[in-house]
């Protein structure tokens, strides 16, 4: 068994964490802030990876779970000094009870993680106990993302509507706002922890069974495995992680809007994984980083051409590296000996 471990992905992980850990030393203020945000996306990418890459459940509305965490945190942050401005504008003068409950940031963190986990769990219970699988799961989650965006847009009194909730303070610990470097390393630590968490979980027997479900659902059922329970469990865990990413996103980004949590962001994450390589944490991480950084740099120079290129790359990856760039690399290394 030892022989099979692909040290290459480990090396890549190490290199990635090294680069991320040392990046603030470069002194590039703006890019540090940007990379901080992309690190939050790494958590989101992993949360989708354990769901899609490992268990084979292609969630096309994953940003809903991310958005729930993000909005809980954003509401909490905007309610620090009484009723938020956007609520006042809609004629709400009294702090609603539920908002009072999450005014404490720690409560918001907890709710922001547990609420999406709960939604995912309920949805999992609802869907996976019937024979809903594969494409139908994708269709349902896609429509759910549509519903979620519509909901956010229409309840302006509680969500800030299309404009979202903005002007949020950055990360703070025990009442003290963090400097950029501190906040960067705070997020870095969170990313590292999530990485270790995902790694441990996916290397456990739980991960083995998830891969079994992805490979052959019928077979695993006749080996006595309740696949709906496993799918529900991984969906809930994935929801919690996506929620955590959202919770971090709100203060790091300074704002949250329906645009950040709809179909578009969901499909973007799917593309990161497809190109980077799903079913491996390394692939998800590299895909997320690579596409975001390149997209940020190339969109000015090439405008629509960058999108066009990305479309072509997706098609090419499907044909020539269906296991993603990292999967392809790992295979090449393995074949060489």
């Amino acid at each position, binding site marked *: 068994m030892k022989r099979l471990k692909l040290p290459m992905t480990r090396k890549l992980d190490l290199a990635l964490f090294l680069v991320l850990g040392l990046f603030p030393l470069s002194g*590039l*203020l*703006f*890019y540090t*802030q*940007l990379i901080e*945000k992309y690190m939050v996306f790494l958590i989101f990418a992993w949360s989708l990876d354990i769901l899609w890459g490992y268990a084979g459940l292609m969630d096309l509305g994953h940003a809903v779970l991310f958005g729930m965490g993000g909005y809980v945190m954003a509401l909490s942050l905007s309610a620090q000094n009484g009723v938020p401005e956007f609520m006042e*504008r809609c004629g709400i003068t009294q702090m609603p009870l539920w908002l009072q409950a999450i005014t404490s940031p720690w409560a918001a963190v907890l709710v922001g993680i547990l609420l999406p986990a709960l939604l995912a769990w309920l949805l999992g219970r609802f869907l996976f106990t019937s024979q809903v699988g594969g494409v139908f799961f994708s269709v349902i989650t896609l429509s759910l993302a549509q519903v979620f965006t*519509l909901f956010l*847009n*229409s309840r*302006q009194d509680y969500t800030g*509507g*299309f*404009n*979202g909730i*903005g*002007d949020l303070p950055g990360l703070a610990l025990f009442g003290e706002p963090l400097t950029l470097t501190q906040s960067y390393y705070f997020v870095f630590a969170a990313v590292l922890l999530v990485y270790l968490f995902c790694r441990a979980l996916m290397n456990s027997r739980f991960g083995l069974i998830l891969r079994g479900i992805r490979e052959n659902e019928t077979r695993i059922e006749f080996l006595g495995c309740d696949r709906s329970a496993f799918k529900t469990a991984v969906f809930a865990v994935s929801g919690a992680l996506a929620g955590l990413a959202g919770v971090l996103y709100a203060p790091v*980004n*300074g*704002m*949250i*809007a329906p*645009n*950040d949590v709809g179909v578009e962001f969901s499909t973007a994450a799917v593309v990161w994984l497809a190109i980077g390589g799903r079913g491996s944490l390394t692939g998800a991480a590299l895909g997320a980083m690579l596409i975001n*950084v390149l997209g*940020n*740099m*190339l*969109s*000015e*120079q090439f*405008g*629509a051409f960058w*999108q066009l290129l990305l479309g072509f790359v997706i098609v090419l990856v499907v044909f020539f590296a269906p296991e993603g760039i990292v999967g392809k*690399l790992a295979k*090449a290394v393995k074949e*060489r000996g």
Partner: protein
Amino acid sequence: MKKFWCSLLACSIALSCALFGCGTEQKGSGEKPIKVGLLYSLSGVTSVSEKQLYNGTKLAIDEINQNGGINGRKIETVFADYASDPARAADKARKLILDDKVVAIVGTCSSSARKAVKPVVESNHSLLVYPQSYEGQEQSKNIVYVGCIPNQQAEVFVDWLVKNVGKKFFLIGCDFVYPRVENKLAQTYLAKNGGSVVGEEYVPYGSTDFSSVLNKIKTSNPDVIYTSLTGDSNVAFYKQYSAYGLKATVASLTTNETVLKAIGPAAAKESFICVDYFKNIKNTINEKFVKKYAETIKDGTEPSYAVMGGYNGGLFLGEALKKAKNPDQTQDVIDAFGGLTIDSPSGKISIDASNHHASLYCRIGKVDDKGEINVIYQSDQTIAPKP
């Protein structure tokens, strides 16, 4: 195989260095140019409007450079595309300020993008020139607003419509802040003028099916359909409205010459539009501008209030740079804006020193059966902004 991957890595590093580098590259020769950021989306949902804003700003800055620049110095523009995503707008604004070290930014279109950029320019003591009309109710010492706000547009329009068209209004808009604020204000204006609201409807952003809304309009039988629909929804609404053959007149706060081309004359004829600028304004500056626009811009857009917003933004910024004590100091530029006056195709307009909004003319246009907008009303003088 390993060599291959190594070289690939090397290539990508070289590529990214080149890309990181090209933003900060200096173009020597003569005096150092003044850097200005342009922050617009050329992709995504608001790209159609922003293309026009961009064209306007670019045209203004090119003109300034051709006429000798800012006291001999050229303006260098750094463009950033935020793809209609407010969060990215904030990122890009940060990049323009911190990385490219621009003295000011002209840009953003939707209120959500402006609101996302606002804390960025405030905390970095920079300047945003916001070119689009919006719902008002905002002020910032780091933002100059050159588009029209409700007291320069809706208030006049509602008043005029009640007097000249009818008293019963049906309000319709996409479901986000701008239309809701506009419609709420319309209600208060109507209450003052003795008009009434017989219906109010919101459709999801981007929705193109208006059958149920049109039947509600039919049932409530209004005189005026007062719309602040945007984008695809706006186009689809006009088309379906005309197919239903309703008697009520459409009065829009958002339609412009470019959108009109997509709507077509058959569907839009006899409708009213109220903004601060139309292509068919009769004055020499405008005639020159329209001709130049047709010659230089060939992307299917028409001179419109959106183009003019971007253009005015560029002109105002140029004037402020000229007047500023030190055009490289953002604070000096901000200080120079108060009371600034320019001769624009939309008339002689100025910036109000107290609230950093522009004093503008209000104009009402009527669409004829060739799809041209004829100006049928113009305020006697510029209207001072009351945000």
